[in-house]
C-alpha cells in the first residue's frame, strides 16, 4: 500500500512514518542471529534477498542434529515462533532438507510455520513462483516472457537448455533447492566474551593468595577490555574447588567499567564471604556482558562535543554498584509514579539503575500524606453520624480530640482488577487534624466497616 493511500484510509494519528534505515536493520538482524544461536550453533544472516536497497530479512539455521534436543522439529519451530512473537516479530518459519527449499516455503508457502520432509521437496516446490528460487528479477522477467511462472513448469523443461538461455545461476539455484548441489552458508561468529583463567599448582585455601590472583586476573581482563574498547557490565568469577562444585561470584554494574580498582571494590566483599572448601584449584574470570566505552584520549578530545558520562555520573553509577553489591540489588531502589488513584498503587519501587517503565503518570493533584504506612494501622474512631466527620480518635493507646476533619474522599477499588474474593475495596478517606497538631489520614473500609490510619503528614 502506498503511503498516500494509507494516510487517506486511516486516522492520521495511527499512521506512523519512519525513515528506512538499512544499517539499523542489518544490525538488528545480526543481533537476532546471535539470539537464534539458542536453536542451532550454525546461524547465518541470509543476504540473497538483499537486492538494491532492500535489507536482508531472513536467517538461515542449520538444524542438523539440533531438533532432538527440542523434542522434534515441530516443537522447535513452535518454540521459535513463540519466542519471536514475544520479541515483537511477525515471523514465517519453514524447515526443509535444503536451505533453498526452506527459503522458498518460508516466503511463498501458505502457512506461517511449515515443515517439509525429505521426500516432499519436489512436490512442495512445484507450485511455487519462480521468485522462490532466489534468482534475480531479470531472470524472472525473461522466464515470464516465455510463459514460465511456476517452478513446476521449469522442472518440466529439458535441463540442458536452461543455462544457455537463462544463465548458470538459475540451474544452480534449482539444484540447490532440490538438494542436487551443495550450498554453504557463512555462519556468524560472535566474539567470545573476555575471559582469563589461572590454575594453581595445587589446591589452596589461603585467602591472600586468592585475593592476589584475582587482582592479577582483574588487571589482565581490564587490559583486554581496553584493547577491545569496552567495559564490563557483568563480571563472573568462578572458584574451582577441589572437593565441591565451583563457587560462582557475580557482580553487575550500572555503567560499563574497566577500572580494576572499582571492580576490585565490588568483588572483595563477595570474595571474603566465599566458601573455599578444601582449597581452590583454579580461578576463572569472565565478563558475561560488556558494553563499549570510549577511549580515554577520545573522551578528552571531544569532551565538550558529545554527551559522554561526566565524572559525577560515573561516580554515581559506581556508588549504586557498590551499594547494590553490598546490600543486595533489591535494597537499592528507585521510585516511579504509576497512573492509579489507589494510594498504595500510585507508585512502584524498582531496582535503581534499571530503565524505568515510562508510565504516563502525572503529579497527583490531591493532597497526600508524606508517609504512607505499608500496613494500615487499625484505629478506633468516634463519629457522630455514620458518614459524618471524625470526632475523636483512639490511636496507639492515645485518646485524641479532633480539631478539624476534611472528607470523606472516596477512593473506589479498581474494577478492572479482579478481586480474589470479589469484595469491594472502596474506602473513604478523612484528613484529620488532631489537637496536638498532627495531621493523619484515616480510611474507613466501606465493606468491613473498619477504620485505619493509612498515612501521616509527618
Amino acid at each position, binding site marked *: 500500500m502506498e503511503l498516500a493511500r494509507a494516510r487517506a484510509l486511516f486516522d492520521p494519528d495511527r499512521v506512523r512514518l519512519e525513515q528506512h534505515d538499512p544499517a539499523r536493520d542489518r544490525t538488528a538482524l545480526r543481533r537476532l542471529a546471535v539470539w537464534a544461536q539458542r536453536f542451532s550453533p550454525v546461524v547465518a544472516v541470509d543476504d540473497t534477498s538483499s537486492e538494491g536497497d532492500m535489507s536482508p530479512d531472513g536467517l538461515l539455521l542449520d538444524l542438523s542434529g539440533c531438533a532432538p534436543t527440542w523434542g522434534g522439529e515441530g516443537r522447535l519451530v513452535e518454540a521459535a515462533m513463540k519466542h519471536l512473537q514475544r520479541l515483537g516479530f511477525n515471523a514465517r518459519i519453514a524447515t526443509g532438507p535444503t536451505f533453498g527449499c526452506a527459503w522458498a516455503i518460508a516466503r511463498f508457502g501458505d502457512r506461517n510455520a511449515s515443515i517439509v520432509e525429505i521426500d516432499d521437496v519436489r512436490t512442495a516446490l512445484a507450485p511455487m513462483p519462480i521468485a522462490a528460487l532466489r534468482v534475480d528479477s531479470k531472470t524472472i522477467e525473461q522466464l515470464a516472457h516465455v510463459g514460465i511462472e511456476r517452478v513446476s513448469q521449469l522442472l518440466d523443461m529439458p535441463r540442458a537448455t536452461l543455462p544457455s538461455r537463462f544463465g548458470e545461476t538459475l540451474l544452480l539455484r534449482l539444484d540447490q533447492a532440490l538438494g542436487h548441489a551443495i550450498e554453504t552458508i557463512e555462519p556468524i561468529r560472535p566474539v567470545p566474551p573476555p575471559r582469563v583463567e589461572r590454575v594453581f599448582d595445587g589446591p589452596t585455601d589461603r585467602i591472600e593468595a586468592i585475593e592476589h590472583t584475582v587482582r592479577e586476573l582483574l588487571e589482565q581482563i581490564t587490559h583486554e577490555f581496553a584493547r577491545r574498547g569496552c567495559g564490563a557490565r557483568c563480571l563472573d568469577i568462578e572458584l574451582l574447588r577441589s572437593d565441591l562444585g565451583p563457587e560462582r561470584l557475580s557482580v553487575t554494574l550500572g555503567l560499563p567499567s574497566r577500572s580494576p580498582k572499582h571492580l576490585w571494590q565490588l568483588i572483595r566483599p563477595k570474595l571474603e564471604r566465599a566458601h573455599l572448601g578444601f582449597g581452590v584449584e583454579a580461578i576463572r574470570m569472565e565478563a558475561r556482558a560488556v558494553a563499549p566505552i570510549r577511549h580515554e584520549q577520545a573522551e578528552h578530545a571531544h569532551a565538550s562535543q558529545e554527551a559522554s558520562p561526566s565524572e559525577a555520573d560515573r561516580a554515581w553509577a559506581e556508588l549504586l554498584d557498590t*551499594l547494590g553489591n553490598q*546490600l543486595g540489588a533489591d535494597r537499592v531502589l528507585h521510585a516511579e509514579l504509576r497512573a492509579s488513584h489507589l*494510594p498504595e498503587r500510585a507508585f512502584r519501587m524498582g531496582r535503581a539503575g534499571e530503565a524505568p517503565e515510562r508510565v504516563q503518570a502525572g503529579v497527583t493533584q490531591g*493532597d497526600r500524606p508524606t508517609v504512607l504506612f505499608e500496613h494500615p494501622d487499625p484505629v478506633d474512631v468516634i463519629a457522630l453520624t455514620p458518614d459524618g466527620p471524625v470526632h475523636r480518635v483512639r490511636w496507639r493507646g492515645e485518646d485524641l480530640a479532633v480539631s478539624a*476533619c*476534611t472528607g470523606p474522599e472516596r477512593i473506589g477499588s479498581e474494577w478492572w482488577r479482579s478481586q480474589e474474593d470479589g469484595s469491594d475495596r472502596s474506602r473513604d478517606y478523612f484528613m484529620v487534624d488532631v*489537637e496536638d497538631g498532627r*495531621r493523619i489520614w484515616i480510611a474507613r473500609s466501606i465493606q468491613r466497616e473498619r477504620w485505619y490510619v493509612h498515612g501521616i503528614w509527618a
Partner: protein
Amino acid sequence: MRTGVRDIGGPSPGKLDELRASIAGLGRPELRSGAPARRLGTHASLDPWAILAQGGLHEWFGGDPEQSRSSKLGREVFWLPPLTILSACAARIVGTNPGRHAVWIGSRCWPYPPTLARQCHAVTGTQALLDRSVFIDTDTSRSARAKRVWAIELAVRCAGVGVVVADGSGLSMAESRRIQLAATGSSSSGGRSRPGTPVLIARPDSERRELSAARTRWRVCPLARSGTHTQNQSRDQGWSVELLRCKGLRLASAPASVREGTRRWTARRDHATGHITLESSARAESDGGLAARLVGGSVTPGRSVDTSHRQSSAKPA
C-alpha cells in the same frame, strides 16, 4: 653589647589573628586556602535554607508534639522523622544543583513518592527530585546501624550526590564525627578538597541529649491548634522549627528574647500545592543591626550556640 635576645617588638595583632586562623584551619580545607569565611547573614535574618545547603551533618529531632512526648508506652518504637520539612530541604538542594542526586537511607526515611514529586513540583516545577532519588533499605539485621553509617559515608563521598537524608537513630558520637568529617569534604589524606554535601539526619526526640558532632541541630514540632470541630475546612498545616545548635554562629549582645526568637521559625505547608514556607517567628521583634553572624566553618566551642542542654519549650511564639 648585643645580647642573644632579639627585640621582636610587641605582638602584632594582625599576625596573631592570622596564626589563629591557620591553626583553626588545620584539617579544614575550606579555611586553609585563606579565603575569607563566607558570611551567611546577620542573626536577625538567618536563612535556614542557606544553613542547610551547607556541607555537614544536620540533625533533626522530633516530629512529635511536645505534650505527648511524655513517657507513653510504645512511643519510642513509633517514631516518624519530620519528612515534610526534610523533603522540602532535599527538593531545594537538588533543585539548585542540577545533575546531583538525593539518597534516602533507611526505609523509615522514605517519603511517599507521589507526595515527594508534588513537593518538588511546587519548588522547582519539575519532578526532578523523584527521578534523581535513590532509596536504600538497610534495616535487616542487628548490624543495620553500621550499614546505615557505611551507606551514608559512601554516599556523602560520591561526587554525584547532592543531599543525603538518613535515619540516624542510635548514632554514636564517633559515628557522627565520621559522617561530619566526610560531609564537610575533608579527606583523611589532607589532599584535594571537595565541596561538602549536606547530610540531613533524622533522630528521635529522646536522643536530643546524646552528644554528636553535628554542625547544626534542629527540632520540629507540629503546631498545636486550638479550635473546635469543623468539617471540610482544610487549613494549612504548621510546624515550629527551632535551631538548637549551630556551630559557628556567634552571638553578640542581644536581648535574650530576641536571641530565642531568631532561632525559631514557623513552617507552613500550603494545602493546595504542597509548598513549604519558613517564616521567622521573630521578624516583628528584630530591630536589625545585631552583631551575631554565621561564619562558615570557624568554630569557637565556648561561644557556639548550643541550647540542646537546655529545656526549651516548643510552644509557638
